[in-house]
Every structure is written in structure tokens, then in C-alpha cells.
């Protein structure tokens, strides 16, 4: 290969979203390592929680923000992923390698997501929400009905997998710290998050992403332009379900159990609130939303207790503050935290242009 061709290839790569996203992912990885190595084990656990919520919210924000489908059933899809992982990690002496477990969680959830997606593609707006809501309500019943295999009400306990030797050595080589169970799970979660976010960002910048936006903005126009609307919707749902499956798999390991009571309707709803808080369609917003879901309740409860409130009042303070935050964000920053800041930034850069629709371009 000649030097000129190589140079132009580099130049070409630099211009593509793939390149941009990979660099973003690498920076993310460095930040994750720096953060995880410098915080306490308790915070590492919280970051693991944030990672799985982030993956699920990321998948949901793509579905809702880019394709305009509202799902109230993502908690149930997470449950599918979690139960798949739990079945493979429950009372086994030699569990499969973790990437295989995660991949199977994703695959099983994709199958379920495809079935639901096909049904959802025939519906519009609130009807999709209703259909997916039914999924979220039915999920605990399924786990109880197949109680012999799925553990019923008590669920399946998950033995936390140990970090493989090469991984522990690699982390030790870089950071001079040993890998504890919690830290390992946080790494697993964040690596999963980075991989899925790079893929999602790529997808959204690709032809597929453009068809999703076209379908969201005007179905008739999209169909006239030769886009198969139904197929685009199912595709978006399946991608989103894959994220929920991965999130569920990580969740099962972080929580160490997959039980029906761990997947209440409020889980699906809080994923949606995280999407709204961060900004519809924005992956960075999804991270912000997941961070709020993870850190806010614990911080508020702690604050309540340090202010001398009783245990019960402190516990009740958390949902109150979260609800107020949500109301305030919707009132003051209707495009979500990230969306509003971005719009303000754009207005400062070029005051003439009207604010861009919050959902557009948000994926970059």
C-alpha cells in the first residue's frame, strides 16, 4: 500500500463517526479506570449500578428519542436478561465465561424484544406504551408460574463471578490495585456500557439511524422515500431490547439475585424518567439520568439522616426529591438537562439559528 493511500485512509477514518465514537469510547475507558480506582468500594458498587441503569436508559433513549416509540416495558426486558444470566450463574460450579453469559442474555432478550417489537410496530403512540406496560405487569407472574425453574417469588440467587486471572493482572499492571468483586463488576458494567454506547452512537449516525429519525418525524414521507416503516420500528425495538438484556445481565450479578420483586413497574417508569431528565435521544443524557437514579436517592436519604430526620422520613424524602427534580427539569429545561445545555450553547455560538429540535442531532 502506498503512503499516499494510507494517509488518505487515515484522513478518511478520522472523518467518520466510527473513528470519533471509538476515540470517545477510549477516553471514556480511561476516565472509568481513573474514577473506579480512586473511589471507595461502596462508590464502586454504586458505579456498577449506574452502569447497568445507563445501558438500559441508553437503549430506551434511542428507541424513544430516535424512533419515537414509548416503551413502558423495559423493566420486563431487563428481567429477561437478568433471569437468563441468573439461570447460568445459579448454583453452578463452573460457570461459562462472563462474555458468553452476557451475550446469551442479550440474545434471549433480543428474541423476546423481536416478538414484542413486531406487535408494537403495528401500534402507535399510547397503544405501544399500553402493550409494553402489559409486558411489565405480566413479567412477575411469569416468574411465579414457572416457579420450579425460575425460583418463584424468591427468585434465583446469583453467585458473583470472580475476576479471571488475566483481567486482575491487567488491572494490577495498570493501577497497582487488586480487583475486588465489586470493582470487577463495576468494570464489567462500564465496559459493557462503553461498548453498547459506541455501537448505539454509530448506529444512530448511520443509514439505519437516519431511517429511524425519518420514521419518527413523518411516517408518510418516510414510506414515500422507500423506507419500510414497520421494519425500521422492529429494528429499533430489537436494538433497544438488546441493551435492556445486557443491562439485566449486569444487574443480576450486581444485585446477586433475580427475583420478581426486583422488577416492579416502577423500574420501567424510572428508566423513562431518566431518559426525560437527561434529554430525549441523548446518550450522554442517558448517563446523567442513570447517575441521578443511582446517586440522588442515597444522597438525599443520607442528607435527611444527617439533618436529624427519622429513618422513615429520610426514606420518604428520596422519592419526593426525585419527583421534584423531575418536575423542575420539565418546567425549566424541557429538552432535558443535556438537551437544554446544548441548545443554549448553540444559541451562543450562532444566535441567528432557531433552537434545534431537542431530538435531532442529539446523538452525536
Amino acid at each position, binding site marked *: 500500500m502506498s503512503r499516499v493511500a494510507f494517509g488518505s485512509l487515515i484522513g478518511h477514518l478520522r472523518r467518520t463517526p466510527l473513528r470519533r465514537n471509538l476515540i470517545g469510547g477510549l477516553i471514556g475507558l480511561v476516565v472509568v479506570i481513573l474514577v473506579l480506582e480512586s473511589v471507595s468500594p461502596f462508590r464502586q458498587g*454504586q458505579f456498577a449500578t449506574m452502569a447497568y441503569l445507563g445501558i438500559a436508559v441508553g437503549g430506551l433513549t434511542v428507541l424513544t428519542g430516535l424512533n419515537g416509540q414509548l416503551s413502558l416495558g423495559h423493566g420486563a426486558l431487563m428481567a429477561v436478561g437478568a433471569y437468563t444470566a441468573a439461570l447460568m450463574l445459579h448454583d453452578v460450579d463452573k460457570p461459562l465465561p462472563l462474555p458468553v453469559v452476557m451475550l446469551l442474555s442479550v440474545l434471549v432478550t433480543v428474541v423476546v424484544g423481536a416478538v414484542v417489537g413486531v406487535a408494537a410496530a403495528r401500534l402507535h403512540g399510547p397503544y405501544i406504551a399500553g402493550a409494553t406496560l402489559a409486558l411489565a405487569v405480566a413479567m412477575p407472574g411469569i416468574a411465579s408460574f414457572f416457579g420450579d425453574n425460575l425460583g418463584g417469588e424468591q427468585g434465583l440467587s446469583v453467585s458473583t463471578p470472580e475476576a479471571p486471572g488475566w483481567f486482575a493482572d491487567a488491572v494490577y*499492571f495498570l493501577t497497582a490495585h487488586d480487583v475486588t468483586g465489586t470493582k470487577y463488576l463495576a468494570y464489567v458494567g462500564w465496559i459493557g456500557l462503553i461498548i453498547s454506547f459506541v455501537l448505539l452512537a454509530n448506529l444512530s449516525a448511520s443509514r439505519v439511524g437516519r431511517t429511524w429519525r425519518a420514521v419518527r418525524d413523518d411516517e408518510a414521507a418516510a414510506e414515500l422515500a422507500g423506507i419500510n416503516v414497520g421494519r425500521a420500528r422492529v429494528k429499533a425495538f430489537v436494538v433497544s431490547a438488546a441493551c435492556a438484556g445486557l443491562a439485566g445481565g449486569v444487574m443480576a450479578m450486581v444485585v446477586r439475585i433475580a427475583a420478581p420483586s426486583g422488577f416492579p413497574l416502577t423500574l420501567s417508569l424510572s428508566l423513562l424518567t431518566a431518559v426525560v431528565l437527561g434529554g430525549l435521544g441523548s446518550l450522554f443524557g442517558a448517563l446523567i439520568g442513570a447517575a441521578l437514579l443511582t446517586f440522588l436517592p*442515597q444522597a438525599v436519604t443520607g442528607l435527611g439522616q444527617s439533618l436529624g430526620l427519622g429513618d422513615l422520613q429520610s426514606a420518604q424524602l428520596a422519592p419526593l426529591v426525585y419527583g421534584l427534580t423531575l418536575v423542575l427539569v420539565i418546567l425549566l429545561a424541557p429538552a432535558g438537562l443535556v438537551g437544554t445545555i446544548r441548545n443554549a450553547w448553540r444559541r451562543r455560538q450562532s444566535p441567528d439559528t432557531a433552537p434545534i429540535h431537542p431530538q435531532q442531532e442529539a446523538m452525536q
Partner: protein
Amino acid sequence: MKRWTKQMTRIAGLITVGALVAACGAGGRPSSGSSSDTAAAEVGITKDTVTVGATFPLTGVAAPGYSEIPTGAQAYFDYVNANGGVNGRKIKYIVRDDGYNPTTTSEVTNELVLKDQVFAMLGALGTPTHSAVVDFLNSEKVPDLFVSSGSIQWGNDPKAKPYTFGWQPDYEIEGKIIGQWVAKNMPDAKVGLFLQDDDLGVDSEKGVRRYIDKQIVKVAKYTSGNTDVAPQIAALKASGADLVLGFNVPAYTALSQLVAMKLNYKPKWFYANIGSDPELIGSLLSKFSEGAVGKVNPLDGVLTTEYIPGVDATDNAWVQLWQKVWDKHGKDGHLTNYRIYGMSEAYAFVQALQAAGKNPTRKGIVDAVEKMGNDAGPPLAPFRYSADSHLGISGMRVVQLKGLVADPLTPVLVTDLGAAPIKEDDSAAKDGPPASGIPEVKPAG
């Protein structure tokens, strides 16, 4: 756009290089084996405090009743602290809400163990919720004392869970005791079982069937969360069962009573201890029926069991102590059976802490609890703790509710898992608390 990318690439490069340079100091592992077990001060213990953690449903569906347990324990610890604490150490009791959701239990238990650095967990409530953290607590070597659940998994395998101890009589021995009582006193009854579809139902059914397998005409199971129990009660009615044994949580006692009233089904009811608190059931019933079921106590005449004296036994020395403690240190509300439950766990914890000696360690308190048996305490029957079993209280007595008062029908009956015989043992029921109200246990040798 291109310049921006270029800049970002440079920044990314700088960060990466910086991180690598900063971190490469480690390189390989040190070859000398460093000993990690330096006997530093025990986690959660200082010169003048002992920190204890607990998780309870303070909010959500499981909160009524259960959220009162930690207020009772807190009141007793306040009482002990006001009297100088244990070996000069005040007990700091941190309660966190899990809303009966195992995901939250996992998060708040992480917080208690890793951030608040508790010495031990005390009385964490719920079977599915606590299953999520029991392995974590054992791998972190945190004493996990007196789990507020009757599942046998907390105590039947101390080798797998050396730091976990059960508290109340497990569901299997309760099933056995109830089964034997029915076989003896109502041998002609056609028995229907009303079961919660988890360890509670499964273990109890196993115990009951040991004695009255042939008398059972129908088994109806419900899943918690589904509030419609009409099909189950209708099935019991259709089977002609004239004695229904309910192994269910309080909300389902109220629901089953309501549905039975609607269907005009009037069998003899026998509820397991966990679902039979008359005060709570009364308030739930009037709530569920929107006031239609008023002040009449629907549990009048119902059979149940008890393993610690309840609020109705006002002349019992233990209850008098609890009343004194609650009057002095209780917050809102009055003394209830749930608060007594919490106080009894707190009392047992103080006993264990005293037995662990002047400078308690996590391992030390586990060893001390294994030797705890016949020390005077509020339970009616002795504990079963030993190196081979971490199961809790060994028995209970059958009682009949007359109004809000429990009228004993049998002496205290004690037994163990499997084929262990049921024996009468009133020894632990006759003791009373020391005059100070604080246990006086000598360190276990």
C-alpha cells in the same frame, strides 16, 4: 468540526499517556507474600460505640407492621445506651429502607457494610430481600444476626453461611407443631391449606404433612402481589374444607377473611404466627373494606401460635419491661407486637455482644451466638444455635385469639427440622428479665 476532532484526539492521547505513566509504577506484583491479617481494631467498633445495621421495608406494600420493628429495636437500644451501653460502648443502630425490593436491599446493604462500616447486621427482614445479600455478608465476614424471616435457609447450613443466624421458629417446625395439634385435637377435620407460594408455603406444608397428610383435602396457593384471592378461597370452599390452615403474610389474612365473608364461607381458621397479628389485621381489614368491616374483630376465635409474649399479656414481666422501655424511649405510637419483636431481637443482640467479651470481634460474636441457648430471654423457647445449626427459636405454643388476647391452648412445644420429635418445654417461658432490664451475660469462654 475537523479541528475539534484533532484537538480531542490530542487531549485523548495526553490523558491516555498521562494515565499510563502515572500508573505504570506497579508493573508486576510484589513477590513477597504480605500478611493481610493484621489484628487492627474491629470494623464498626470504637472505644465507645458499636455500629449495627439493618434493612427493613419502611415504605411500600410491606411497610405496615414491619416498619414498626426497627422502632422497637431503636427504643431498646436507646434504653441500653441511657444506662451506660454495653461495656461502656453505646449502640449505634442504622436502619435503611429497602421497600421490600431485593435490588434496593443490595444497594443499601452495600452502603451499610462498605460506607457506614457496621460491625454486624441485625434483624434484616424478608426472604427474597435477604437472599440477595446473604452471600455478600458472608464473604465480607459480617455477622448477620437474627434474620427476620422464618426461612430455614438462614440456619440449616452453617458451613455455607457461617455468619448468618435465623431468629424466629422456622416455617417447617411451625408446620409440624400445627400439624400435630390438629391431628390430636381435630382428627376429623377436613383440612384446607392456604399457602404463600414461596419458602413460607413450601416449608410449612412439608411440616404439616408429616402429621395430617391424609386429612388435607385441598391446597390453595397464592402469589404475593396478586391481591385477588377469590379463586383460592372458592376452591377451598368447594372442597368442603372445614378447617383452613393459612400460612400467609398479614395482608393475605385480611384478604382471605374478606373474601370468605363475601362467599359466606365459615370454616375454622388457623393462621400461622406471621400472619395473625390481630391489631394489624383489624386495621388492614377496615382499610381494604373501606370501613365496611368496622370495629368487630374478625379474628375472634381464630387459632394461631406465639413464640414471644405479645402486648396482650400485660402481666408478663417481659411485656412490662417493653412497656417501660417504650414509654420512656418510644417515639410516635404505642407498643405493638411488631415493636416487641424488634425489642426482643435487640435484647438478644445485647446478650450476644456481652457474651463476645470486652473487646468483641466479628468472629467472636459468631462464636458467642453459637453458644447462646438457655440464657434467659424473651422467647418462649430456647434457641437452637450451635456449630451445626444456626436456626433460631426452637418452638412455640398454640393459642386461640379471644378479642385481642391470646389464650394458650398448649404448653410451649419445641422441636427441630425433619423427624425430630415434638416435646413440651416450658423452661424458657417462665424466666423474667433482670431488674435492670439489661441482660447480664458473662463472656463465653
